[in-house]
């Protein structure tokens, strides 16, 4: 069958099982759009290309599948860069198709030409400039394989206009084998044996799990390991949902705004079992004060993650699912009850820290506390919603007060920290999971960075609920200025904010507002009763701080309890 490059792109997407894509047309990519309209693939027309990548990313996180987006050359392509970089930092499988000027014009500074392959080289897992239509099917096959295998990540495919127009015989490759890319899935059994012997000897172990547990779908294996030997579990921001948020062994998140007791537990443990986590600076703080008394086991599919920031005693390269599965095999004979008894002193020690410094805030009668809003969203949705966040205080309060029970339910830009991520990501998640409640917990600063996607939500009737914790400030930076810059609030007061209810209405979307604590629950319930997208403007206490907090560069046990 002879097909044009544009037809090959669409046919290949269908072969890969893609049902939804997010994009924005433009001159260089019109050929694909022309053919896409005739296909069963549903295209979501965004209002800014950055939104398209975040949607594909949110779709991927909620569904566990590859998210796909399609944009034109030049500015269409450059607008995707932030989204690509975010997906790269968080290891999210996303494919970005970009248009490109015809091959004879490449390098001539043609209209809407940009070297997007050059620009995105450091922030993609891999990228391609397709120069011949004959190469296209294999490139797409490889791109999907790379995006979803090993440590997942974004892959970009740049498509010159003439390549899309040229025809060739189309046959989509069935199998793929790349001699230069063979991720290690199976953990080395000898390393696992060593790890098991360390684990069985430890008196004060802690499991520190990250996003790798979610992308490898190994929450069940993690839970089984924790329960068999009564090992308390903390996760990173990316790992929230990997372990049930109401489990007795759950410590809460660790790190800069983690719980006091999770950080103290890590600071005093004798064995740290890191699973699919990368010892990010927001987790470790000052590296030589991180888990100073512990031996460290590190399981990761990406060898570069191991010994990048901290030295470890037992490195294990492999898929978390395989490594945890093998570990569970080795320890399955041990007696659960005995372990529970033996672990009591350690659990008591942790409980003391927890009781002395719980996560808390004071909800008065007048002002709404932002934490209260998150807690009430948790209660009203019974913990079953998909929560996305923007970046800043909203992100940390969502992480602290929504107790995630399931994986793939917390969608946040963890590594790059992109303001404006949460709302488009929520749209992507809603496309992936039409039957679930999707809430974007936003700040009044962040939401304005991709507010234009209200049109996308409205046009496709995607009932995403946006809860704006409106404090009138860039709250996290303001908090930083309050604590470390003697309250000099340089440029963090958001003068000129819109009336968010009127803004919603301008888009034909419902807008609600809550100004007093007693209005919070009714307004959340009302939002859920509305079939379409809703913006809720929660006027919250303007100078609330995220607590606890470890100042950057300090040890994790030196928390400020502001």
């Amino acid at each position: 069958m002879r097909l044009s490059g544009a037809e090959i792109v669409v046919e290949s997407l269908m072969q890969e099982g893609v049902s939804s894509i997010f994009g924005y047309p433009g001159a260089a990519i019109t050929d694909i759009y022309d053919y896409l309209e005739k296909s069963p693939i549903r295209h979501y027309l965004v209002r800014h290309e950055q939104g398209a990548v975040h949607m594909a990313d949110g779709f991927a996180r909620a569904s566990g599948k590859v998210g796909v987006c399609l944009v034109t050359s030049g500015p269409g392509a450059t607008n995707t860069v932030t989204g690509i970089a975010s997906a790269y930092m968080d290891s999210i499988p996303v494919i970005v198709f970009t248009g490109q000027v015809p091959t004879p014009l490449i390098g001539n500074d043609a209209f809407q030409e940009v070297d997007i392959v050059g620009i995105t080289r450091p922030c993609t897992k891999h990228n391609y400039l397709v120069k011949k239509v004959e190469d296209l099917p294999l490139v797409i096959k490889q791109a999907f394989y790379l995006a979803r295998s090993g440590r997942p990540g974004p892959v970009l495919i740049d498509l010159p206009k003439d390549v899309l127009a040229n025809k060739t015989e189309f046959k989509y490759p069935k199998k793929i084998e790349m001699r230069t890319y063979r991720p290690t899935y199976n953990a080395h059994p000898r390393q696992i044996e060593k790890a098991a012997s360390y684990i069985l000897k430890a008196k004060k172990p802690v499991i520190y799990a990250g996003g790798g547990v979610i992308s490898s779908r190994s929450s069940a294996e993690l839970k089984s390991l924790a329960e068999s030997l009564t090992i308390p579990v903390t996760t990173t921001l990316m790992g929230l949902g990997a372990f049930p948020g109401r489990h007795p062994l759950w410590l809460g998140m660790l790190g800069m705004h983690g719980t006091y007791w999770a950080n103290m537990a890590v600071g005093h443990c004798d064995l740290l079992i890191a699973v699919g986590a990368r010892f990010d600076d927001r987790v470790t703080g000052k590296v030589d004060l991180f888990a100073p008394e512990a031996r460290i086991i590190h399981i990761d599919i990406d060898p570069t993650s191991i010994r990048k920031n901290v030295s470890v005693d037992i490195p294990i390269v492999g898929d978390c699912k395989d490594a945890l599965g093998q570990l569970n095999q080795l320890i399955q004979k041990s007696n659960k009850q005995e372990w529970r008894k033996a672990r009591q002193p350690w659990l008591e020690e942790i409980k003391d820290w927890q009781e002395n410094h719980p996560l808390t805030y004071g909800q008065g009668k007048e002002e709404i506390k932002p934490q209260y809003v998150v807690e009430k969203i948790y209660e009203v949705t019974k913990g079953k919603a998909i929560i996305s966040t923007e970046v800043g205080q909203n992100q940390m309060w969502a992480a602290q007060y929504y107790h995630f029970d399931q994986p793939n339910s917390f969608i946040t830009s963890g590594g790059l920290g992109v303001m404006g991520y949460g709302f488009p990501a929520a749209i992507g998640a809603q496309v992936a999971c039409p039957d679930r409640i999707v809430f974007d917990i936003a700040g009044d600063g962040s939401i304005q960075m991709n507010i234009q996607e209200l049109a996308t939500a409205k046009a496709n009737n995607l009932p995403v609920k946006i809860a704006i914790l409106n404090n009138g400030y860039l709250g996290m930076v303001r908090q930083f200025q309050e604590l470390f810059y003697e309250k000099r609030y340089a440029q963090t007061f958001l003068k000129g904010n819109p009336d968010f209810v009127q803004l919603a209405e301008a888009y034909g979307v419902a807008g609600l507002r809550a100004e007093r604590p007693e209005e919070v629950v009714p307004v959340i319930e009302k939002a859920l009763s509305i079939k379409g997208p809703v913006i809720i403007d929660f006027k919250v206490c303007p100078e609330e701080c995220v607590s606890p907090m470890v100042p950057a560069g300090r040890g994790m046990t030196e928390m400020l309890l502001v």
Partner: protein
Amino acid sequence: MCLSHGAGRTGDDGNAIGVEMENGQEQKHTISALVDNEPGVLSRVTGLFSGRGFNIESLCVAETMDPLVSRITLVTRGNEQIIEQITKQLNKLVNVIKVMDFTNTEFVEREMALIKVRAEATTRAEILRIVDIFRCKVVDVSPQFYTLEVTGNEGKIKAILDLLSHLGIKEIARTGAIAMARSKKEAPLKTGK
């Protein structure tokens, strides 16, 4: 505009890579990578070095026997942990086929330099003696200058440059190092057939 979840980009005291780890001594390493012979691959490799703050002291790239494969030989410097990251990060690039670190192995290493040196009637004899001692070649002659071609390891090239410098070096062009592992000495030589 995009604040990380926490106190932001300001004020961090920046725990640079590996600062807190047991570092060990910095050492020069000669690393050779076989890579796909495709446009953009060199840029992926150099981008990796600049993006992650690794050093490149010299770099050489050329096709191998297999026209689909190129060999990149690069000289870098770092402690054990940095070099481990460099080799792991190189291996992670999709276009990289194989990475070898020659340091602490038996290997042959060569660089080449072209040196244009002032050659007056009074100094020509001395230059030619140096050429002889260093086993290099005069590849171009003009009334005022000799151009010499010298190959050797870094030390040898430095030595000849030092010797020639007082005679007046006008220009030099140097390659980076290329390297190859020595074949195993104990392997028996096959004869016959």
